[in-house]
């Protein structure tokens, strides 16, 4: 019993044969997943693949149909209260109260998590400084830019010092600059000890941030590993060719030398040859048969 408990708590998130059905739709199908303490785990998948459903189950918002899920060693259905105390959640939609200021929203979240009065003030001041929102603290949420709103939502989720932070498509709709600022924030949070579970549409985001990546498709996990491992399984070099000006084909090779040998043998009806390193988008397309939806 003791060893089982220890092994569970070494992992932040564990799901076993997790299923979720909505009417006639199976949103999750026997999902087995493990996220280690201290990692940034990226969850990739096309729209409707089951990313948000997974987050909703793990954050106690949705009851699973069967199977089990635990966060920090606590079962999400049996110990929902304990799970709620150790997680922070930033939803895809802005879940702040738009009629309040950033500081009031933070105060409210701190109260919901039962921080004492003195602790509230101290944490709010610390976090405002941590993310550089001090000068916006007393502005109404609705007057902030998209990036600032997202930052405000993230600081609200951090007030009770969660061990695991769930971020559902946190950078959707943000410009490149705002997105990179949020990446810096996520890296900083992670280096300060927070485990991050991140869903994203942006492949470059997953490559830039995540220590491991899972790809979900039609509710099933179809690939899992570090970005390097996943690219390695496919081939580290890719040759893009345009055949008869119609369709782009992708060929994967373990190294540049093999790719070059392949290109030299190509016939004349094949044009626009590009040799490049493979990336997670290639893994994604190969595994799902679909292009990444860029929201």
């Amino acid at each position, binding site marked *: 019993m003791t060893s089982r408990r220890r092994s569970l708590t070494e992992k932040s998130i564990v799901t076993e044969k997790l299923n979720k059905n909505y009417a006639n739709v199976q949103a999750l199908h026997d999902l087995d997943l493990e996220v280690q303490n201290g990692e940034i785990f990226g969850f990739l998948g096309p729209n409707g693949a089951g990313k948000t459903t997974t987050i909703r189950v793990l*954050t*106690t*918002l949705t*009851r699973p149909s069967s199977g089990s899920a635990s966060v920090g060693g606590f079962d*999400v*259905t049996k110990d*929902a*209260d304990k799970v*709620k*105390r150790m*997680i922070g*959640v930033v*939803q895809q*939609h*802005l*879940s*702040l*109260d*738009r*009629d*309040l200021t950033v500081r*009031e929203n933070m105060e*409210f*979240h701190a*109260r*919901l*998590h*039962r921080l004492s009065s003195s602790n509230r003030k101290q944490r709010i001041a610390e976090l405002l400084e941590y993310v550089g929102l001090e000068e916006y603290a007393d502005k109404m949420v609705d007057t902030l830019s998209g990036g600032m709103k997202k930052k405000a939502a993230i600081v609200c989720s951090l007030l009770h010092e969660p061990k695991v932070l769930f971020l559902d498509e946190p950078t959707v709709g943000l410009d490149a600059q705002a997105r990179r600022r949020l990446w810096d924030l996520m890296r900083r949070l992670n280096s300060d000890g927070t485990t991050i579970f991140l869903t994203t549409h942006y492949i470059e985001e997953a490559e830039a941030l995540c220590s491991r990546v899972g790809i979900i498709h039609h509710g099933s996990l179809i690939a899992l590993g570090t970005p390097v491992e996943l690219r390695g399984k496919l081939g580290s070099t890719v040759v893009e060719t345009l055949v008869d000006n119609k369709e782009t084909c992708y060929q994967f090779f373990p190294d540049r030398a093999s790719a070059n040998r392949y290109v030299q043998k190509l016939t004349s009806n094949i044009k626009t040859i590009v040799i490049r390193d493979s990336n997670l988008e290639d893994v994604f397309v190969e595994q799902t048969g679909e292009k990444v939806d860029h929201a």
Partner: protein
Amino acid sequence: MFDSLKDIYSILWVDLRNLSRHWRSTLATSLVQPLLYLVAFGYGLGRGISFEGISYLAFVIPGIVALTAFSSSFNGSAQKLQVDRLFYKSFEEFLISPVSLYSLVAGKALIGIVRGVISSIAVLIVGLLLSPTLIVSPIFVLTLLVSCFVFALFGVLVASVFNNHVHMSTFNTLVILPMTFLCGTFFSLSQVPESVKIALYFLPLTHSSNCLRAAALSQPFPWFSFVALISFGAIFYFGSLFVLKKTSL
């Protein structure tokens, strides 16, 4: 227990912050309808008419106070909750937090009570100026508070059940609007057929009107209606818990 009370206050705190920004427009909009009824039915149409041995104005004012408690408390808790649930989707922040559903339902009802009490007192003051014979006794105040709590819980239940604005609007038209006029607010239930009277006893506003009118006019207090009102409150509270439990762990 102490944590639960703190949680309930935390939920009220955020709603009070919102109310403090919009209190003038909130109060004005919640008073227009009852004051119009008071002027049109009570002071205009009913002036000079006697009813069951008392002036119609004195008869109708407690009914309009009950109506004000109903509409302000119901809308006070239902509107914000529905907008938070369906439009902003910020209601899930409560469900992710360690706050229990018991505290959540009570906390979301409190803002309805605050709005209901404020609006009712404002209407009551106008009513007392028009008809100084009305009696504001402790039982009247207690009934008013209980009514506001029951109607606020009704708002929490309705806003938790419906998953789109169209259904909510349909409910308002088919249930809330008829309740406004039929639940003994403007006329005595002794004037309606027995079968209709029985049907009206299944609506909480009927009991609130009965109790407030009896207390204000120094008539025998209908304890059956008072117990029925509290029973409605219990049904709405546990109904809200049931609905929210279905959507959360």
